[in-house]
């Protein structure tokens, strides 16, 4: 082999289409396009087997193949002379390839339609540059691409993230610190943080960074989109060349005409045209604490060598989030009752009402609408309704997490109620949809309701 295969890992991101040349036993050549070539080890690659097509038939007759893969960083094409070895229908490699296919299909709302039949393993016999696909040195001015070529998860960046995490004193500041550090230290300006919702197999977005709307409350089912796939598989997913992958999936969909595929596209908060996405499950002792998703318009943003760092980062963030939740709950448990607590002096008096907002609680749906527009549902809706009702009846503005936990009408779970996550979600939804109502933190386990409008409360069945 003239060139080491491991030096070509950038070619295996699926950013540019690859070509596969085969030949039947009776001497008829075949030229086909490939969605993806996967790096296996220094002497092997894997090709996805999704349909029993002519290339696959040829390989069963004649195991020789030739593949062209272009390097997305330089444009240099590489020719890999291959020999088919075996097919894998399970195991880490198969799972990784299947997950990528499913994640892209799911992002298009086409989950479950495209199945990976096997990961076909080929020995790489020879590697050489393609003479008519000559690479060029990237000019210095191409900053986005240059940034893409540099490593991301450096020790310095991780140290900065760690310092921010240690300074956080609440779930809100912790999550915001993580997203801020991802931008300042790692250069990821678009990110989102999701946690398990009350409803089984649903994730809810509690914080985002870099988008025009904060996206709080956006829900994703397990297995839907990159975040849903990450939560379902409990494995990181990294996709480069997402647009190409989506075009490939949509082309297959048009061809397949599967009646089950008429599903709505998932309304994820996110970039309109993401090229790279990275989803990380936040796992602590096997429990899914949340999902962190970052995305970029740069096609090849996340590198192969970052994979271990990404998994480590996920574990670290999971522990940080879980510790914060436990800390808040513990502090809350030993706190004095609200009546005995000192008044919240820092809170400014409510501003005079200049606008009127109609807030309606729909009991059957456990959901709140503001001026006819959906605000929030489930436990956060019940919490807000309790606060607003108390405020209307008595003028009360100060509340504690503890009293919410003791309120049986909210039906919070006895263990792991995720109250802090729910309050954070509620706060973010109010900021976005009804900024005249605010929840202001007043120290651990205490907060104030800040109403700066005239409220008209109503309940409906």
């Amino acid at each position, binding site marked *: 082999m003239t060139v080491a295969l491991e030096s070509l890992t950038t070619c295996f991101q699926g950013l540019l289409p690859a*070509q596969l040349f085969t*030949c039947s036993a009776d*001497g008829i050549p075949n*030229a086909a396009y490939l969605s993806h070539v996967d790096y296996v080890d220094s002497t092997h690659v894997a090709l996805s087997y999704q349909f029993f097509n002519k290339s696959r038939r040829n390989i069963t007759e004649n195991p020789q193949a030739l593949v062209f893969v272009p390097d997305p960083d330089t444009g240099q094409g590489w020719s890999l002379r291959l020999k088919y070895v075996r097919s894998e229908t399970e195991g880490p490699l198969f799972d990784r390839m299947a997950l990528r296919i499913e994640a892209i299909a799911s992002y298009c709302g086409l989950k479950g339609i495209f199945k990976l039949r096997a990961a076909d393993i080929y020995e790489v016999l020879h590697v050489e540059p393609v*003479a008519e696909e000559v690479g060029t040195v990237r000019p210095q001015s191409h900053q986005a691409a240059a940034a893409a070529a540099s490593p991301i998860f450096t020790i310095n960046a991780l140290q900065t993230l760690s310092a921010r995490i240690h300074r956080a004193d609440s779930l809100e500041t912790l999550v915001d610190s993580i997203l801020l550090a991802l931008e300042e230290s790692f250069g990821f300006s678009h990110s989102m943080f999701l946690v398990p919702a009350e409803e089984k197999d649903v994730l809810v977005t509690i914080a985002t960074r870099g988008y025009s709307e904060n996206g709080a409350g956006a829900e994703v089912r397990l297995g839907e989109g990159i975040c849903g796939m990450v939560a379902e598989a409990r494995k990181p997913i990294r996709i480069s060349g997402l647009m190409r992958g989506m*075009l490939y999936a949509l082309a297959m969909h048009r*061809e397949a005409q599967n009646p089950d595929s008429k599903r709505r596209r998932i309304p994820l908060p996110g970039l309109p*045209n993401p090229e790279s996405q990275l989803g990380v499950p936040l796992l602590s002792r096997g429990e899914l604490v949340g999902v962190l998703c970052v995305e970029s318009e740069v096609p090849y943003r996340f590198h192969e060598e970052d994979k271990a760092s990404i998994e480590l980062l996920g574990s670290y963030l999971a522990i940080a989030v879980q510790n914060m939740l436990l800390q808040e709950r513990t502090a809350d448990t030993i706190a004095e009752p609200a009546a005995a607590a000192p008044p919240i002096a820092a809170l400014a008096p409510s501003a005079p009402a200049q606008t009127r907002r109609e807030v309606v609680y729909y009991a059957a749906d456990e959901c709140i609408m503001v001026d006819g527009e959906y605000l929030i549902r489930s436990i956060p809706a019940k919490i807000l309704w309790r606060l607003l009702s108390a405020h209307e009846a008595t003028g009360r503005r100060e509340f504690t997490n503890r009293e919410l936990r003791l309120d049986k009408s909210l039906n919070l779970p006895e263990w792991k109620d995720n109250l802090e996550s729910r309050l954070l979600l509620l706060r973010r939804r109010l900021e976005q949809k009804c900024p005249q109502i605010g929840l202001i933190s007043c120290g651990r386990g205490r907060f104030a309701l800040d109403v700066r409008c005239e409220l008209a409360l109503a309940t409906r069945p």
Partner: protein
Amino acid sequence: MIEPDLRAFLEGGLGIHIGTRTARLEPNGARALAVKVEEDRLHLIVYLADAAARRVVPDLRANSAVAVGFARPVDERACQIKGIFVDVRPAAGDERRVIEEQWEWFRANLERIGIPRIGTSGWPTWPAVAIRFRATTVFEQTPGPDAGTLVAARS
């Protein structure tokens, strides 16, 4: 054999690859720059940079078997035409315009899916050779279960 709409697709600035094979059935391949469908709608001329042609022309001269894959990056529509090699010659000066026009369309298509022109700026387009072949079969190749379906055949 090559219906008008297929011809328009083929000549619309696609990713084109030519496949051949050796006497030992080893596959070979090269990237092509452009294609021209002749008026008889049976013969095609595929244009390759000189550097690319060197790898596949010996195979064509030895056994005549040829397969050409076409793919449009913006929607992944693809087809493959198989046939019999007829002849090869240097591309003439007046064919350069066809080559450069289709090549630019192809690069514009790549740009539409986020692949900048700089990535292909070093790929040679001239001098080129013209490989003429007679089509025998056309196959659907858009990704999906119908990839490989025979669209047209002529012996």
